[in-house]
């Protein structure tokens, strides 16, 4: 429907009688509608295809030994117990660093910052951080946490790297939640004599809890699915921690998460294990999505 020159328009008017024109338009509309439905159908088909294929290939691999043993040629076992433990460690450590920092940043942006240069700078930095690809985080983590701070290839290096990566996710979601807290809550609390910190601690943060939780759930999904940022920071160990070696010993050792192990399995053409891990990962992703849905419908709090 470009606004053509008037004579072209006239020409069209004369060659096409009214009935034909509306007919033409109807066909065009029908084609467009079909395309729109096809596109949506394609997205759904893609997802169901992926889930079906991965579960069909991966579930047969799963079994109790797959979850409770460590891959070992000597014992002839194929298992992901060590990677499960590593994943839990990395998720927990990353959240311990990123959640306070992200929530704190959101509180400052929403409650303390005056609109101006600093606020804009921080917003820009958060946006930028969200756009940096994970492989760049991986490179940075490797040289900064690994070499400069001397942490080497370790779970701690990986977790610190990931905490930078998920920081924007936490900040954004907390900010949104804080924005949704009615202004009257704030003035009410201040009016009753509460100090600002008291108001934040007792009124704002509890009201923002669902939003913060959403951010955390999204972050966990991101961490569990991450591989490029971990490959050169947390490395690829897959052993279970020695009993009694302690928490601090464990986090200073290299350790591959499920996703990293899956990548390594693929690279070494061990497709059975790869599909098994893929099924586990999809299971985790589906569970977290369900939790998010429940959270959105206020069923968790």
């Amino acid at each position, binding site marked *: *429907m470009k606004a053509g020159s008037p004579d072209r328009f006239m020409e069209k008017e004369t060659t096409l009688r009214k009935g034909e024109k509306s007919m033409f*338009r109807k066909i065009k*509309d029908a084609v*467009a*509608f079909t395309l*729109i439905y*096809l*596109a*949506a159908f*394609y*997205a*759904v088909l*893609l*997802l*169901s295809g*992926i889930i079906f294929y991965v579960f069909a*290939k991966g579930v047969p691999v799963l079994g109790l030994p797959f979850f409770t043993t460590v891959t070992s040629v000597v014992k002839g076992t194929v298992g992901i117990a060590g990677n499960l433990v590593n994943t839990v460690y990395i998720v927990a450590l990353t959240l311990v660093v990123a959640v306070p920092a992200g929530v*704190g*940043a959101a509180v*400052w*942006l929403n409650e*303390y910052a005056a609109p101006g240069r600093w606020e804009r*700078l921080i917003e*820009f*930095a958060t*946006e*930028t*951080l969200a*756009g*940096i*690809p*994970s*492989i*760049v985080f*991986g*490179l*940075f983590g*490797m040289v900064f946490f690994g070499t400069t701070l001397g942490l080497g290839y370790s779970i701690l290096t990986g977790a610190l790297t990931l905490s930078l990566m998920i*920081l*924007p996710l936490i900040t954004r979601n907390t900010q949104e939640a804080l924005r949704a807290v009615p202004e009257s809550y704030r003035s009410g609390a201040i009016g009753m004599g509460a*100090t*600002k*910190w008291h108001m934040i601690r007792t009124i704002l943060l509890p009201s923002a809890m669902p939003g913060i939780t959403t951010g955390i759930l999204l972050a966990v999904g991101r961490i569990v*699915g*991450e*591989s*490029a940022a971990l*490959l050169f920071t947390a490395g690829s160990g897959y052993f279970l921690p020695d009993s009694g070696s302690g928490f601090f010993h464990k986090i200073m050792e290299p350790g591959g998460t499920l*996703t990293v192990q*899956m*990548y390594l399995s*693929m*690279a070494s053409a061990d497709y059975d294990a*790869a*599909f098994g891990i*893929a099924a586990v990962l999809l299971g985790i*992703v589906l569970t*977290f*999505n369900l939790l998010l*849905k429940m959270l959105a419908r206020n069923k968790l709090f």
Partner: protein
Amino acid sequence: MDIGLQQSISDVSQGRQSQTLTGKRNHTRRIEAVAESIFTLCAFFAVFAVGAITLYMIANGVPAVYRLGFREIFFSSVWKPAAEDPSFGILYVILASVVGTVLAVFLGVPVALLTAVFLAEAAPRPLAAVVRPAIELLAGIPSVVYGLLGMMILNPLMYRLELWLFHDASTHRFTGGANLLSAVLVLAVMILPTVISVSETALRAVPDQLRASSMALGASRIQTIFHVVLPAARPGIVTAVVLGVGRAVGEAMAVNLVSGGAVNMPLPFSSVRFLTTAIVGEMGYAEGLHRQVLFTIGLVLFGFIMLVNIFLHRLLREEEG
């Protein structure tokens, strides 16, 4: 004594009371100050992080350029890091990333836009309630899973296509299906969720008045969508596309396994290496100058992303007014 004791008790309690009152006030003030400074510190954490990343990428990426010379790296297409007389030309690697990203965006964006139109304009409620969660789930699938599926499903199909197309070509180097086209297809799928959700938001932000006016002038729903709603939502859609570009440029693990990995001219049926996959593939064992060049590749990638980010930032601010 009795009286004295009482006196002293009341003295003490009064004294303590007044002391605790000012003490408490001081204490509160101190807590307030500490709280505010901790929040400020948290807020600047992101700034420190971006600053440190920029600094480290430059500090680690520039030495190789300095040692080899700008032309030797950026305008040479020969990548032989392990040869006797090593050569570190990354021209094809950069080109592959650019071509791959552009093709993926061209393939993915139309589908994504149509899906967004479906969700925002066309879908009956129950259907939208199926499609939207599906897209959210697509966004949550780890990239290695996309890589595995690309490797197991797409590559064999691509190999068949390759055999059929080049069965009598004597010069073609067969890739077993791991080529630029496979990578582009995987990327096109991977950018879908981002582009769909951002453009859906943009479409929903278009005021209903515009739709009503268009319909009142006799336009059909489709005409309204394509000639009124989409143009009105253009800034948001551009943002969606730019976000898609960022995702496609930075994707590493999924394309690493489906793109072949040889350094070649980015032609559809050649095995190619991207900026990201060059790093993933060789960082594990690279040493010395080779390692430094990999950091230069990282710096180039970082540069691309920063360009995308700055562009995005401009767009968002324009959108806000």
